[in-house]
C-alpha cells in the first residue's frame, strides 16, 4: 500500500508515567481516549507528589489549591494552636503526607472511572518506587470496572494482549518506599515470568528501565542528605541507573512492549531484541503530560512520543 494512504488502524495504546501528584497532568491523561483516539491506557508508577505545603486555616485559596494540584504538592491546613499527636515532627508530617497522597489517588480513581466510562476505555495502573505502600493498597482495593491494578499479575487486555506490571525499583540514593535489591527484584520478575512465560502478546509495565537503555541521568551522592549531584571537571557525572534484573527479565521473556519511566530526563524508544522499550519521560511539575502512543499493526509496532 502506498505510504500516503491512511490504513485501517489496529489497537492504539497511550502510556504516561511519573505524574507525581499532578492532577492537571492526570486530567490530560484521561483525555487521551478522545484526543489521541486511544483504545487502551497504561499509567506507570510514581503517582505520589513530592511536596507538602503548610497553610493556615484561613490561608487556603482556590488559586493556591489549583497551583498545588498542578505541581503535585499537597496543602496541609494546620491551625496555630492545633494539638499534635505524639511522635516526632517528621513522623507526623510523613503520616499527613501519606494520607493526603492516598486521598488524591482515591479522587483520581473516581474521576477516571467517571471519564473513561464515556468511552469504555480500560486503564491499567501500577504504583512506583516513590509511592508509599498505602498507595499500592488503595490501587489494589479499587473495585472499578475500568481502572485495574496490574502489579505482580497478568491481566487480559484488548486485541488478545496481556498486561503485566511491577512498580518496585532497584536501590536509589533517595531511599524511596518501594525500592529493593536487584536480587529481590529479580525474584519478583521471575514470578511474573512464570505467570506469563510467552512474551509475544505481553505488554510489560515495569516502571524502572532496563540497565543501559533509556536510563541515563546525573548520578547522585547518596551518602549525604539530601543527595547531591556527583561532579567531575565542573560537569555532572552521568550514568545508567536502570535495573539489571529488569534487563535480564526483558531479554529472557522478550515481551512485545516494555513500558517504563522512573528516569524523568530520558525519553525515547529503543529495541532490546524483539522488545520495544519505551520511556516517555516526565514533566509533571508544570502540568505538562509526556506520553507515548503505541500503534499496533500487523506484526509490528509504531510509536509516537507526545508532549502536551
Amino acid at each position, binding site marked *: 500500500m502506498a505510504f500516503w494512504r491512511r490504513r485501517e488502524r489496529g489497537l492504539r495504546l497511550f502510556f504516561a508515567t511519573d505524574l507525581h501528584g499532578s492532577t492537571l497532568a492526570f486530567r490530560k491523561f484521561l483525555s487521551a481516549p478522545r484526543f489521541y483516539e486511544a483504545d487502551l491506557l497504561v499509567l506507570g508508577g510514581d503517582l505520589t507528589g513530592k511536596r507538602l505545603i503548610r497553610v493556615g486555616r484561613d490561608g487556603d485559596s482556590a488559586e493556591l489549591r489549583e497551583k498545588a494540584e498542578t505541581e503535585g504538592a499537597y496543602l496541609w491546613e494546620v491551625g496555630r494552636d492545633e494539638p499534635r499527636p505524639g511522635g516526632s515532627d517528621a513522623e507526623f508530617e510523613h503520616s499527613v503526607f501519606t494520607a493526603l497522597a492516598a486521598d488524591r489517588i482515591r479522587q483520581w480513581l473516581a474521576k477516571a472511572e467517571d471519564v473513561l466510562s464515556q468511552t469504555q476505555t480500560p486503564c491499567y495502573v501500577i504504583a512506583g518506587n516513590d509511592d508509599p505502600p498505602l498507595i499500592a493498597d488503595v490501587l489494589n482495593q479499587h473495585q472499578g470496572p475500568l481502572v485495574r491494578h496490574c502489579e505482580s499479575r497478568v491481566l487480559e487486555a484488548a486485541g488478545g494482549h496481556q498486561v503485566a506490571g511491577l512498580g518496585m525499583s532497584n536501590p536509589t540514593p533517595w531511599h524511596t518506599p518501594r525500592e529493593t535489591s536487584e536480587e529481590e527484584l529479580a525474584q519478583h520478575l521471575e514470578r511474573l515470568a512464570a505467570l506469563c512465560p510467552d512474551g509475544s502478546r505481553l505488554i510489560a509495565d515495569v516502571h524502572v528501565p532496563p540497565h543501559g537503555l533509556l536510563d541515563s541521568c546525573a548520578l547522585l551522592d547518596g551518602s549525604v542528605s539530601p543527595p547531591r549531584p556527583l561532579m567531575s571537571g565542573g560537569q555532572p557525572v552521568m550514568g545508567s541507573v536502570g535495573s539489571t534484573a529488569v534487563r535480564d527479565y526483558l531479554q529472557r521473556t522478550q515481551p512485545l512492549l516494555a513500558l517504563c519511566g522512573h528516569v524523568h530526563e530520558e525519553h525515547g524508544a529503543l529495541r532490546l531484541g524483539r522488545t520495544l522499550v519505551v520511556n516517555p519521560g516526565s514533566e509533571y511539575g508544570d502540568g505538562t503530560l509526556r506520553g507515548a502512543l503505541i*500503534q499496533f499493526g500487523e506484526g509490528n509496532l509504531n510509536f509516537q512520543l507526545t508532549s502536551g
Partner: protein
Amino acid sequence: MLVISIFFLWGLVYTTWFATLGAIEGMLPAVMLTCIAGAILPWRKPDLYRTSPIAGMRALGIPLITITGTLGFLYTAVVFVAFLLDGQYLVNSPTSLIWIAGTFTVGLVIFTVSWLVRRSQGLDLSKAYQAIPPA
C-alpha cells in the same frame, strides 16, 4: 544527515554562499512567531500561562509576557524588513534569498513526507506537541 552536514560545512568554508546575514534573516520569522505566541499566551492558553513562573508578573496591569512579546516582535520585524530593504547587509541578493526560501521549502517537504508516513502508520504527527485539553 552526515553527508548533508559535510556539504553545508564545505559551503561555509570554501564558498561565499553563506557570507551574508541570510541565516539570521531566515531565523527571524521563527523568533517573530514565538514572540506573538508569548504575547497572546495569557488569553490563548490560560491554564498553561497560570502554571508558568511569569504568571504573576504585570506592568500597568498588562501581563509582562505580553509586553516583552510585543516589544520582541516589533524589534525583530524592524530588523527583518531592514535586512530585506537595505543592500548593505547582503541579505537581499538573489543567492541569499534563494537559500532562505530553499531552507524553508526543504523543511516543509521533510515535515510533509514525515506526516504522510506517520499517518500511514496510524499516527497523527500534528498532535505530537499539541496541548491536551484536561478532562
